[in-house]
């Protein structure tokens, strides 16, 4: 069995055919983490004992004909997801000893579906970052090139799945944090519609932007996990009571006649890497060959998106981080890292009396305009296709001294969070051995369609089968 190439679908098949037990499968992954993660730093905590015990339970359930959609599947969680009895740090020193007394709703749902939480992954502290370099612990490396970043903030989750240390990993996406690492690590990553997946128990970054996603190797795996995690949660008042369709059923259908919009503002961005642009145009062509109608559209307020994002998000960040007040959790506020401090100061300023109207309130108005851009666009197209990142995965240290350059890696992604609409990153090429990703963006609650288009594209290409040699 070539473990590196397993997907959730094929692993479920392996277990079903009794080619190996869940315990053996989980042990394979735990051993692999032990063997290679010293080079990659994807995990902050590995729960060997707990994972093996859950694997035994999965085996006994399977022996008793219990069927569960993810029974025995080893999954890693970004360290923003609180896990009962398992240390949860948010990638931040200030809570490096925190062991939560409860599971995040999504963690509970994954466990209920039979998944095995094998460990907690590294990340930019609190989700603040696009490279993984803002972790208060070690820097995670890109499995395709250990001198480059895996993308952030869900850096460890992306690296763990890409390097074959688990079959799927959860992430959060507030501005890019699932899609960018998925793009840099050749994965399918979903940024859900705001409110589609419960935020309860996921440590908050910017509450009105945070979405709870995950990364997998294939579209089918992504859809399967999404069926488990999405839906109303009584513990999160922002999850509407809208039925969860069978996302698996939306796969494998043709896309003839699907209207795919290409935002002209995105491809004309100065500073867009030529090779990334070329890969995106190639993917556009492929979608056209599959029968989609490619239509140029406009998102006229794009140029204001980053400014809007970097006022509203730090405002909420400054509020959400105020609970780490130095009284509980064992560390004083001076233990916050540089990026957290930067955002606390920015946000506190933007919310202060006398500045609120000029900053927070104005940005909130811009938010409405950007939302409207997307609403208008979806009047004419079914999905929007856009590059995920303007550039290839960059070298560790290349942007860490320049926060503004780092912020701009998210330029195609933050508008999606501002609008609250769903998006997928789908692998769409390689340049010099480094992955390139594209985004498929849809109107609210249109994830089924996104999976459909992504699966048609995936079936026509081979990018998702190209794995790093680690």
């Amino acid at each position: 069995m070539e473990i590196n190439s397993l997907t959730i679908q094929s692993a479920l098949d392996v277990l079903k055919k009794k080619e190996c037990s869940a315990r053996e499968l989980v042990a394979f992954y735990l051993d692999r983490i032990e063997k290679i993660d010293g080079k990659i730093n994807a995990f902050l905590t590995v729960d060997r004992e707990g994972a093996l015990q859950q694997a035994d339970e999965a085996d006994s359930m399977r022996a008793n004909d219990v069927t569960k959609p993810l029974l025995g599947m080893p999954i890693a969680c970004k360290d923003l997801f609180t896990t009962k009895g398992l240390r949860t740090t948010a990638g931040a020193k200030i809570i490096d000893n925190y062991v939560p007394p409860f599971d995040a709703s999504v963690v509970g749902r994954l466990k209920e579906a039979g998944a095995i939480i094998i460990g907690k992954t590294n990340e930019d502290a609190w989700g603040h970052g696009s490279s993984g370099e803002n972790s208060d612990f070690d820097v995670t490396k890109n499995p395709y090139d250990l001198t480059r970043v895996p993308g952030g903030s869900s850096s460890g989750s992306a690296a763990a799945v890409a390097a074959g240390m688990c079959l799927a990993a959860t992430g959060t996406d507030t501005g890019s944090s699932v899609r960018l690492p998925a793009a840099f690590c050749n994965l399918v990553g979903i940024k859900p519609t705001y409110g589609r997946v419960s935020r309860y128990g996921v440590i908050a970054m910017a509450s009105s932007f945070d979405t709870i996603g995950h990364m997998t190797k294939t579209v089918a795996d992504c859809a399967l996990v999404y069926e488990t995690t999405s839906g109303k949660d009584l513990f999160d008042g922002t999850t509407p009571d809208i039925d969860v369709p069978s996302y698996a059923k939306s796969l494998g259908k043709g896309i003839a006649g699907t209207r795919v919009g290409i935002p002209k503002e995105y491809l004309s961005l100065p500073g867009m890497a030529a090779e990334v642009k070329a890969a995106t145009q190639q993917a556009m062509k492929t979608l056209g060959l599959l029968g989609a109608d490619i239509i140029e559209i406009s998102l006229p307020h794009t140029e204001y998106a980053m400014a809007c994002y970097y006022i509203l998000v730090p405002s909420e960040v400054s509020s959400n981080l105020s609970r780490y007040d130095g009284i509980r959790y064992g560390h004083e506020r001076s233990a916050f890292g540089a990026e957290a401090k930067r955002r606390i100061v920015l946000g506190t300023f933007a919310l202060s009396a006398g500045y609120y109207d000029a900053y927070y309130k104005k940005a909130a108005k811009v938010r409405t305009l950007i939302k409207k851009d997307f609403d208008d666009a979806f009047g004419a197209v079914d999905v929007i296709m856009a590059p995920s990142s303007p550039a290839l995965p960059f070298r560790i240290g290349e942007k860490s001294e320049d926060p503004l350059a780092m912020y701009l890696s998210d330029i195609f992604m933050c508008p999606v969070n501002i609008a609250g609409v769903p998006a997928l990153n789908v692998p769409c090429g390689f340049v010099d051995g480094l992955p390139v990703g594209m985004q498929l963006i849809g109107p609210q609650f249109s994830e089924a369609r996104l999976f459909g288009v992504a699966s048609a594209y995936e079936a026509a290409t081979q990018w998702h089968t190209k794995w790093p040699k680690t």
Partner: protein
Amino acid sequence: MAHKMAKNMKYETIIGLEVHVELATKSKMFCGCPADHFGKAPNTITCPVCLGLPGALPVPNKKAVESTIMLGLALECEIPLESKFDRKHYFYPDLPKGYQISQYDQPLAINGSFGNVRIRRVHLEEDTGKLQHATIEGEAVSLVDFNRSGVPLVEIVTEPDFRTLEEVDVFLKKLQQIIRYLGISNADMEKGSMRIEPSVSIRTLKTEELPLYRVEIKNINSFKFARKAIEYEIERQTEMLESGEQPKQQTRGFVESKGNTAAQRDKEEAHDYRYFPEPDIPPMRWKSSQLSAISRQIGELPDAKKGRFMKDYYLNDYDATLLTEARARAEYFEKAVSIQSSVVSPKAIANWIINKKIDLEKVTPAQLLDQILQSTQTTSVSDNELEKIIKQILSENEKAVEDYKSGKDQALMFLVGQGLKSLSQKGNASIIRERLINAIKSSAQ
């Protein structure tokens, strides 16, 4: 004292109130923990939400929102069709999230009035934990008890419409009564479920504008102390003005042991709370049908009930006021009156409830009626005497007679009561009743 009075003649006191009331809902404002925290062992009713643990989210308590709207309606407020929660940031060890979920610019109820006092707003928020300062093993420590954290708290803000202590007193007592009537809180000051923060300032008489400062007084936990604190402030500020000083905008704390107030915070040190809309809770939007459903739950309020008691049961102002003081007492009275077989007049029932201090928990209304009947001495009264009295009653109480004829049984009770009164409680109520009925019947033929 006379000296002080003379001084005060030149000035007018301006008082506004902020009143906090803990709602008696089953669960807390944003989680499932029980809201009743009084007397519980520290930190025994907490959960990730009210402890503000990382990742926990608030889900608003529908009942608490409805209770607040109900109070807003009872205070004749407008209920805007849209409302929302906001975050109010400040640092304090008893505030586990570093912010309090409150309401800023879109409270649940606005622009009401209660008596002569205008109500600026009524909004809903969460209570904080409580600090306890103790000595443990010789070391002075501060401990936090989070039992109270997240208990629903209503804030009622009046306009600065009070000019005297007496007006404040009447308002607070009526407010407490109405809150208890609505059944939304015990509004018990000693237990901290009702807290008062008066703002006091002084202006010279005949001035139209409000003074440019106000002194907010915190740390008051009884009606008595509210009075004391305001009295002290009036005196302090008047003396300042007299000696040519200008009182400062300030927050002061009432010091129980000394009966005075002490400065806590000046205007320059005022918090910047950095309010912004609470992103974890969607805004609330009301349909008018929802509001009218809440309005129907309000029931009869004390003033209306008192008026009805006077009219329906022929009670005087004094009796009706005392009976309607608390809703339970009023309901008990009406239950006793409604027992059809009884021949005891409402007035007699009222007298017993008021004067004999009946324990309403222990004595049922039926038992009360028995007690009243048994104690009514029945001595023989001559037929002639009775006849005379019946005639007299009928001629003196024409309205009650007409009421009875038009089907109002309570009017008969009243007439029986008059009979008993004339006979100095010596008559037999059922005989008087029978004679009255016969007399009215024969007069009708």
